[in-house]
């Protein structure tokens, strides 16, 4: 089995429109959560979110392309181009995969089309509504844009979509099924209809995202994408490529218990499974990038799962959702950037919004400012609605 490394990374997210600016914001603990700028905000009870501010799609795509690209695909494509430019892959395009995670696909396209026919009484929608809203559109456009003709598809597992996508790509490169892969996730569901749907669940925070904190009161949504280039370590070394990190393990489990409430058993089995896949003991883990949504239920359950896997040992933990919001299907991909920052520079980004320790969440949370730490191995957690869990284990290059 091959060892698998990351040689390219790209992103468009609320913290920045490339990796360098995202790293700066993560390091400084700058939160992008702010007043939402969307139509009909006065009819929403959720009035905050983390948007990609100043996104200028016309700087990235020509007019003909733009007609075909939902906002989540614009983010994905821009991120993939950055990752490709950094990696400068030499792998056979016919044996290079594209695997993207998304929970909602082209929800903004659907929202606009429904508004046109239902609310505005119009009799036609944009002719490219279908290719824009397809959940697989990001994978298709990346493959076309970069000329990659190997396996390409999208993975949908709600808030774990990105980790499932990256994990599958890892397994395919490790097994030799493909020579390389572009993998990550993208999401853009900050639309009126999308937010109305989230309001209905009554899990959204009115003021801030406060993962693992006393007084936390829910999640805050974000949008964006991140894409990574995966290839065998040997190939990267042979061509002198810069290695950002090594992916050493991956595991996925399902709770089989509830469609919204998490179950700590499924989460614990996924973390333990990723470590077993990597051939590592829990004692080897220096840092965990938590799922940490800021809901009462997730953070309590995740803290229990961490205690079960790591016992009394304090593992520095952060949830960067407090900075960039919950990117749903793109969450794991954007959070992997924070993991890269920890592995490359020994900087664990802080969890914002902290009000004090919650007895239900006895974790070593990095709050206030970033923490300098010697991080050789890190886990990245994703635990989705419906009990779909996916955990990646990464090691310093």
């Amino acid at each position, binding site marked *: 089995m091959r060892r698998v490394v990351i040689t390219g990374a790209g992103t468009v997210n609320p913290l920045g429109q490339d990796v360098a600016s995202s790293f700066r914001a993560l390091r400084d603990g700058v939160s992008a959560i702010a007043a939402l700028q969307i139509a009909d905000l006065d009819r929403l*009870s959720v009035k905050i979110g983390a948007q990609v501010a100043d996104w200028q799609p016309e700087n990235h795509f020509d007019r003909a392309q733009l007609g075909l690209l939902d906002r989540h695909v614009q983010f994905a494509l821009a991120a993939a181009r950055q990752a490709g430019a950094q990696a400068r892959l030499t792998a056979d395009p016919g044996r290079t995969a594209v695997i993207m995670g998304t929970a909602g696909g082209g929800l903004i396209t659907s929202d606009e089309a429904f508004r046109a026919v239902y609310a505005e009484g119009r009799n036609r929608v944009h002719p490219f509504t279908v290719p824009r809203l397809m959940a697989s559109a990001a994978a298709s456009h990346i493959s076309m844009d970069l000329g990659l003709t190997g396996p390409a598809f999208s993975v949908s597992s709600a808030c774990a979509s990105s980790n499932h996508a990256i994990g599958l790509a890892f397994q395919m490169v490790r097994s030799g099924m493909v020579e390389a892969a572009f993998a990550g996730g993208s999401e853009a569901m900050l639309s009126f209809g999308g937010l109305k749907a989230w309001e*209905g*669940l*009554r*899990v*959204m*925070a*009115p003021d801030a995202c406060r993962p693992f904190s006393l*007084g*936390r*009161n*829910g999640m805050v949504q974000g949008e964006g994408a991140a894409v990574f280039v995966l290839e065998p370590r040997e190939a990267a070394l042979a061509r002198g490529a810069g290695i950002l990190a090594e992916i050493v393990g991956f595991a996925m489990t399902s709770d089989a218990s509830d*469609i*919204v*409430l998490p179950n700590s058993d499924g989460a614990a089995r996924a973390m333990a499974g990723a470590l077993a896949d990597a051939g590592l003991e829990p004692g080897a883990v220096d840092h965990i990038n938590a799922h940490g949504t*800021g*809901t*009462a*239920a997730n953070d309590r359950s995740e803290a229990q799962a961490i205690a079960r896997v790591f016992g009394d040992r304090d593992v520095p933990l952060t949830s960067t959702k407090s900075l960039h919001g919950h990117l749903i299907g793109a969450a794991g991909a954007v959070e992997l950037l924070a993991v890269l920052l920890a592995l490359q520079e020994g900087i664990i980004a802080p969890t914002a919004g902290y009000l004090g320790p919650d007895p239900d969440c006895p974790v070593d949370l990095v709050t206030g400012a970033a923490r300098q730490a010697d991080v050789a191995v890190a886990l990245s957690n994703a635990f989705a609605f419906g009990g779909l869990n996916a955990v990646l284990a990464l090691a310093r290059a």
Partner: protein
Amino acid sequence: MGVTMDGALGFEVSVADRVRAIIAEQAMLEPHDVTPGAALSDLGLDSLMLVETLFALEEAFDISVPFNANDPAAGRFDLSTVRAVIAGVEGLIAAR
């Protein structure tokens, strides 16, 4: 006497009876089993059923129930018993 509203068939149905009927439907019980003193948890309403119940109440009475599942106390809407829910709904109707 509780607040009354015009029912769909032209006769008056009390808010209390409509609230009990809504809770009964969500809990998959008969309305007469939904007694005013019953605790919602004792009626078998889990967190999802509770959210659906609140939605049904909001739609039925054109009200907005302040409730965040992460912090149930924050909205000051008492969901402990059927009686408390009826009083809460009547209060929101009066404030409408």
